[in-house]
């Protein structure tokens, strides 16, 4: 009688977590999110795999319903203190996320950025760095180019920085802090 969407099932969450690991290992590669149906979107599916009650979360552009946020169980906070941030690609961030410290660079924020499309778009990026053989080119729709300017200012002091996960309706792509991005 109780309807729980597939994205909340442990085996689907494990599959999506595995996708995230693969995406982080191969920056710029596209991965189809598992367990999506009419009642659940890609943002929620990825957040369901990442969040629990021990982390702090901020939906900085109000992309989720309040009822969905309750299911994620994460503590809600301001963008500057969040472990995970959900943002819109068309809104340039006006906050400073956590960048970690030299002793604990892992205590930085992971930003999930919602874009219109990851396979085709007017913003063409050239990616190089660890996990990429020579160069990876990708086209994105719905990501303001100022996002990349902000990202550069956050990741320039490696190992400090943030990791980005870009999501459209079906797929995800990761831009870890080690990836160098050129706008073509």
């Amino acid at each position: 009688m109780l309807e729980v969407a597939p994205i909340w099932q442990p085996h689907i969450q494990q599959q999506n977590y595995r996708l995230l690991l693969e995406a982080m290992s191969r920056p710029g590669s596209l991965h189809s999110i598992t367990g999506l149906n009419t009642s659940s979107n890609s943002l929620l599916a990825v957040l369901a795999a990442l969040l629990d009650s021990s982390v702090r979360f901020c939906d900085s552009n109000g992309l989720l319903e309040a009822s969905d946020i309750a299911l994620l169980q994460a503590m809600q906070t301001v963008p500057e203190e969040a472990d995970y941030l959900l943002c819109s690609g068309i809104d340039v961030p006006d906050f400073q996320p956590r960048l970690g410290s030299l002793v604990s660079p892992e205590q930085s924020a992971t930003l999930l950025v919602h874009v219109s499309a990851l396979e085709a778009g007017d913003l063409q990026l050239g990616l190089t760095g660890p996990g990429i053989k020579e160069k990876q080119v990708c086209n994105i729709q719905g990501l303001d180019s100022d996002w990349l300017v902000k990202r550069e200012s956050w990741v320039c002091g490696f190992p400090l920085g943030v990791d980005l996960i870009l999501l459209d309706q079906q797929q995800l792509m990761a831009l870890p802090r080690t990836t160098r991005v050129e706008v073509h």
Partner: protein
Amino acid sequence: MNEMTREEWVSALTSLPEERLTELVKGFPADWKVQPITLPQVGLGMMKMKESAFNESFYLGEFPLASCAVTVTTESGVSAEGGALVVDDRMERAEQLALCDAVLAGRLPGWQKVEALLHEGSARREQISLERKAMLARTKVDFSLLEDVGGEDA
């Protein structure tokens, strides 16, 4: 409706044989929309206590714990929220109790059946409580008798 507080409902309903609750829940209309408010979970709780000598905390042990909170919407659009936190290792049990909690709290169709079961469970719980008190009473030692018997030190 009844003298019991809402916090006591789960306790009363779990006093009855499980089949009674299962049958009742099966009788609710299948076209009701039941959605989670928080994800149903099953796990272990830790029982924290304080020892009497130094008043320090310690964990007595673990116990199974299932929780569920739902919103029930009937075919006519009326909705109610319910929840349950029960010492059990089955999610279905928590779901059934949360559903009954919502039906009774929101007076959804069939709430009278839940209330009847609640009264039955309350009576059963009272009976169990009396039986336990009687068992405990049999173990009571009356030390005053020692004085009556007397002795060299009396």
